């Protein structure tokens, strides 16, 4: 449609009005939420923001800590933000690269190395003496240490054990926890009756699978020359998966999901789960969700192939870091010092049944059933392959896809080969 030339001769006032609105809108938009986050760091109490992972500690423990910390540190206010594990890599990276990062961040021991290597984390080597870090757990201290510099401060560790419902065991006439895999399968079959789930094992708990694979003498990835390569397709690893499949079938765990979705503690708190695999502290969360289950749970280490040795288990844990971009690094260090010091480590060991960050604190676990089971399991504790790229494998996690494929009836050998190739590719990137 040809436009009459006269149309362009003058602009309607509306447009000027509208244009004015645009500027107004823009300014409004820019000013409306401006000074929300920054506050001067000179006078008054400093606000320290800490990122803590969901379910790391109970609310009760955290409240206790906060109260005590506020009483002893008048110049610091602590704001704890709870983060989800799902998608945490992106979030921590975004935080480390920002100009105003959270001041303390909890990072998993398998992930701390890549952050430390990135240059966004404050070097805390000179604090090691102050923190008396000579007997830190190596499984936590080493991943946080790059080229002799200590970036990650060990916080807590935990091995996964089998948690069982004592009432269910009694009702099924089971006197003692199983010592071997065969016994374990037998009693689980017995428990898996009626409304009860013999064992709640989601299909994608890959570190549980890792334990079974280690028991068979295999591994997730092995060093081949200077690179790592995936090893899920070795005969040993396939045997481990075979056992996982057998066990997983004795309950209603979703085949296509891990323990976060649905939340493990929520599932167990419904009361129909006879056994599940988790760190002992998980029971505290279950009891918090459903007080009726208080005192109902017992613990035993994941049974091994033979009765003389418990099954291998994955040692998980967390380090605490201070981002370079934190604006309150000194105050942040105060928070770390409190969390990793004797008082709160001992409290944590008792409350959460975690392994404290130093061997000298370990006596705090004496007399704790979960702690005893964990100590037994820890004797055969293992870690993920020590490659700086391992975090990338966890981020896309081909192991999870592999497990789901096998559990839903795909060919195990072919899927294992595919997943292994995938791991190899990620580790050599």
């Amino acid at each position, binding site marked *: 449609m040809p436009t009459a030339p006269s149309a362009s001769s003058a602009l309607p006032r509306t447009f000027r009005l509208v244009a*004015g609105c*645009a500027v107004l809108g823009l300014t409004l938009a820019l000013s409306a939420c401006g000074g929300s986050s920054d506050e001067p760091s000179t006078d008054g109490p400093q606000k320290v923001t800490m990122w803590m992972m969901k379910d790391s500690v109970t609310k009760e423990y955290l409240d206790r800590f906060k109260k005590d910390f506020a009483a002893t540190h008048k110049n610091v206010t602590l704001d704890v933000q709870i983060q989800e594990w799902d998608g945490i890599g*992106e979030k921590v990276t975004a935080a480390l690269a920002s100009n105003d990062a959270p001041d303390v961040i909890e990072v998993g021991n398998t992930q701390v190395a890549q952050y430390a290597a*990135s240059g966004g984390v404050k070097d805390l080597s000179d604090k090691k003496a102050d923190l008396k870090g000579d007997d830190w757990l190596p499984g936590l201290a080493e991943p946080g240490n790059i080229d002799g510099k200590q970036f990650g401060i060990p916080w807590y560790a935990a091995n996964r054990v089998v948690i069982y419902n004592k009432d269910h065991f009694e009702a099924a006439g089971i006197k003692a926890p199983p010592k071997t895999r065969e016994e374990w399968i037998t009693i689980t079959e017995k428990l898996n009756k009626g409304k009860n789930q013999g064992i709640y094992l989601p299909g994608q708990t890959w570190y549980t699978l890792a334990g079974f694979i280690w028991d068979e003498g295999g591994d997730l990835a092995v060093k081949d020359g200077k690179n790592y390569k995936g090893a899920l397709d070795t005969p040993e690893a396939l045997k481990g998966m075979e056992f996982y499949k057998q066990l997983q079938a004795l309950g209603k765990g979703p*085949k296509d999901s891990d323990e976060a979705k649905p939340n493990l503690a929520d599932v167990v708190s419904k009361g129909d789960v006879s056994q599940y695999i988790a760190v002992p502290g998980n029971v505290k969360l279950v009891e918090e969700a459903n007080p009726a289950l208080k005192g109902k749970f017992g613990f035993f280490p994941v049974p091994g192939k033979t009765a003389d040795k418990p099954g291998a288990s994955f040692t998980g844990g967390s380090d605490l870091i201070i981002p370079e971009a934190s604006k309150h690094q000194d105050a942040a260090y105060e928070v770390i010092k409190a969390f990793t010091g004797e008082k709160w480590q001992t409290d944590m060991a008792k409350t959460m049944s975690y392994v404290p960050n130093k061997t000298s604190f370990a006596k705090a676990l004496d007399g704790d059933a979960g702690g005893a089971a964990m100590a037994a399991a820890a004797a055969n504790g293992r870690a993920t392959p020590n490659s700086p790229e391992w975090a990338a494998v966890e981020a*896309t996690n*081909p192991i999870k896809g592999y497990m789901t494929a096998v559990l839903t009836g795909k060919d195990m050998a072919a899927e294992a080969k595919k997943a292994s190739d995938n791991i190899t590719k990620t580790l050599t990137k």
Partner: protein
Amino acid sequence: MSLTLPRALPRTYRPYLLIAPAVAGAAYLLVYPLVRNIVISFQRYGMGELIRGDAKFVGFENYQKILGDGEFWTVVWRTLWWTTLNTALIMVIATLVALMIQRLRKVMRILVMSGLVLAWASPVIATTTVFQWLFASRYGVVNWVLVHLGFESYENYSWFANGPATFAILVVLIVWQSVPFAAITIHSALITVPTELYESARLDGASGSRMFRSITLPILRPIFGLVLSLEIIWTFTCFAQIWAISKGGPDGSTTTLPVYAYQIAQSLHRYDLAGAASTVTVLILVVMLIAYARQMFKEEADL
């Protein structure tokens, strides 16, 4: 940035002033990031570089790596298949629905239109969550219906553990979300066809299919072009639904290009490779749409 227009200003400047805010916005929020993305695609840019900001140029290394990776091409083909399948289904179903609405009486028409608008208006995140619930392995309605139709094997079936099944669910979701817009738009165009045209054609003894071909189709052509190109863009670049439902899995079977680029960037922290992948993605999309853009410019004398 003042947008008021002084009266004395020569009239030739006015159009440029009018587009100035759009251009300024695009320069800061679209062109600059795009250029930045292209620059990154020629650098070594990982987590360390993002944090420290000391990236080195590596030439075409990232492109070589991406283009030489078999997985990338699998993803490209999957994306094209995904786009074709979705847009074809959307266009066919939407046209049928539009033609159906045209023939309906008032009450039914309002009913169907309300339903379509309801589906259209529901926020993607909400409906995506609903679809997960519909296909949930336990208590999911779909499994229940299938079991009661006699397919016993769907008892507690895990849809999202199976590649083709997840792909199919995503197609259903996208089609369900997209058909209302397309159908309503096509229907709106249909009712602009003067009824006299049909009447005179009927008097001339034209059959129904003949009338569809020689009257309806030509009039619908421009709108088909528009809807088609929009649907291509939307399904090709669709990310949120796939990410929310499957994160590209299981086993990569629902990984399309946008998901692929996101995985490389966010999970592997290889922003350089992701930059290269997304640059290639844009090129593919532009090539796909260039035909439409040319057609549009040819048809509109006004441009």
